[in-house]
């Protein structure tokens, strides 16, 4: 049968493969054909794996033996900072351009064991530092809805791959919004799980107290299916949690109660179209019988400032490992120490250098208390605000982003305006709470319909409430 990639979901693809309407090889070939048509424009993929069809053949064997699981034979894309043994993982950086992963990340290992087909690796902001994928050493990813605009970032390639029908789902990483913001810009669903819900073993670290791996898909149910495979405690990542780590107690009897921090929504730089779409989303929840409450998060306006201290501090530590000795690029100098200076100069891009220096500054003696310690204290206050709010509501709703995808080049010269893109998304990383972005209407700019996203945040460990409300909102 002709495969309708545009309307396919994981469940539908699975059912078709069980019935024998098409095989995983057929499906994989259909995706590779689509990628070949569109990737020249979009630049979502950095590489299509030659062993994809081999994996699809193995998946088809599992179907024949009746051993196929829900993700067996499902073609997916993986962000270039999550390791798949034997494949290059460059983090879209020149310093790792030829680095071949020596082991599997736990998340990709679990997906491989579930029988997925890895189609290829996707473009991103270098080392996940950015909000537009313009910081990739290998050119920007373009938004499939308007090629003049960014796909968002840093998981821009992963979101665009799904949006252009170049994969049924993908993996991204989210440190300050890097799954949810590109998902919103590209009109797909993106989940940032609870901190520790998914092992980060084998994900190239950026901000270790903030980073999480999560799925991007076309539907909430697809993201849920992937999350259920990749989640779980891992001895190789001491920050991973169990189902018992966070006992959750819901307020809403039948339906979750939704809180809105209205005092935080009307600031400068927020596109009226984003607020309009948000109000429409809230009306739709009301119509479905959800109770809506106004809540106060007194310290939330400090979240982005906290983020731009804690994150670079952790970046400066994590990036110290790239020294041209153990792996990756090496540029020769007159002695060992000059090798470091030359290698890092040649291999690391502007935004990465900026954050390393900023992190070194806020951690240096004399500034440590004023910046890093203070940021950690305010971080705890913000988390307390959220925990308090969750005593009376089950979900907190905001727009995912201040507006739709912006034009390529528009924010590239002003780091501060790019950083403000994360205003609604960073809180979930600051608090460690799970959050999801779901498509929530479009707005017309320059004759193009551009997607917007609704963000829902839940208590620690309560992804299931995100899925329940998300599916109902999306009409799944």
């Amino acid at each position: 049968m002709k495969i309708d990639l545009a309307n396919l979901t994981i469940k539908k693809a699975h059912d078709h493969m069980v019935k024998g309407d098409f095989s995983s090889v057929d499906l994989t070939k259909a995706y590779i054909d689509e990628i070949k048509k569109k990737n020249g424009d979009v630049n979502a993929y950095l590489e299509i794996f030659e062993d994809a069809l081999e994996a699809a053949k193995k998946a088809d064997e599992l179907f024949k033996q009746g051993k196929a699981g829900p993700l067996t034979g499902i073609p997916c894309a993986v962000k270039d900072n999550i390791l798949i043994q034997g494949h290059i993982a460059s983090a879209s950086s020149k310093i790792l351009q030829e680095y071949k992963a020596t082991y599997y990340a736990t998340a990709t290992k679990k997906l491989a064991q579930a029988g997925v087909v890895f189609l290829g690796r996707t473009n991103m902001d270098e080392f996940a530092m950015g909000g537009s994928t313009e910081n990739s050493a290998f050119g920007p990813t373009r938004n499939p809805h308007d090629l003049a605009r960014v796909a968002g970032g840093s998981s821009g390639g992963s979101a665009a791959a799904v949006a252009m029908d170049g994969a049924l789902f993908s993996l991204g990483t989210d440190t300050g919004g890097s799954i949810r913001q590109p998902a919103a810009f590209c009109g797909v669903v993106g989940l940032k799980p609870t901190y520790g819900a998914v092992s980060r073993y084998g994900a190239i670290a950026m901000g270790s107290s903030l980073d999480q791996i999560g799925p991007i898909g076309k539907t909430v149910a697809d993201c849920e299916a992937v999350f259920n495979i990749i989640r779980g405690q891992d001895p190789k990542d001491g920050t991973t949690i169990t189902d018992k780590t966070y006992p959750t107690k819901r307020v809403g009897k039948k339906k979750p109660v939704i809180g809105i921090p209205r005092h935080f929504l009307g600031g400068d730089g927020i596109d009226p179209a984003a607020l309009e779409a948000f109000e429409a989303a809230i009306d739709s929840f009301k119509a479905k019988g959800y109770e809506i409450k106004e809540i106060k998060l007194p310290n939330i306006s400090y979240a982005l400032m906290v983020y731009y201290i804690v994150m670079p501090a952790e970046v400066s530590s994590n990036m110290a490992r790239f020294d041209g000795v153990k792996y990756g690029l090496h540029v020769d100098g007159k002695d060992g120490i000059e090798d470091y200076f030359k290698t890092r100069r040649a291999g690391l891009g502007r935004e990465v250098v900026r954050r390393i220096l900023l992190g070194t500054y806020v951690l240096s003696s004399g500034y440590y208390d004023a910046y890093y310690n203070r940021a950690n204290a305010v971080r705890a206050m913000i988390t307390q605000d959220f925990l308090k709010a969750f005593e009376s509501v089950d979900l907190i709703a905001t727009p995912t982003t201040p507006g739709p995808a912006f034009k390529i080049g528009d924010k590239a010269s002003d780091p501060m305006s790019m950083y403000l893109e994360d205003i609604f998304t960073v809180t979930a990383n600051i608090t460690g709470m799970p959050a999801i972005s779901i498509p929530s209407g479009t707005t017309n700019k320059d004759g193009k319909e551009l997607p917007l996203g609704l963000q829902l945040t839940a208590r620690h460990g309560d992804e299931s409430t995100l899925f329940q409300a998300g599916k109902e909102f999306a009409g799944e």
Partner: protein
Amino acid sequence: MITVKELEHLAVLSRIDLTEADKQSLVKEFDSILGYVDQLKKVDVSMDAAGRVGAVKNVMRADEPVTVSAEDRERLLDEAPDREGDFIAVKKIIAQD
């Protein structure tokens, strides 16, 4: 807010060469970013929040050597820019008399 001299010191600590043009633009960018995050200084953090980050606690494990297979060792060594046999080769750091 930050001087070129301070920036040069940070670059040395971070082991990154900077050009003159880099320094000029970075000084400006630092001013804009630090100007923004400096607003945190007006927050009253007198509560006992200092140094406490959520419910994070240390996770310990035994410090035990792990046996790596010959294949894994080869894969790891293969990624090194320079090797001699089963060692990663680096430049000499002690001067010869």
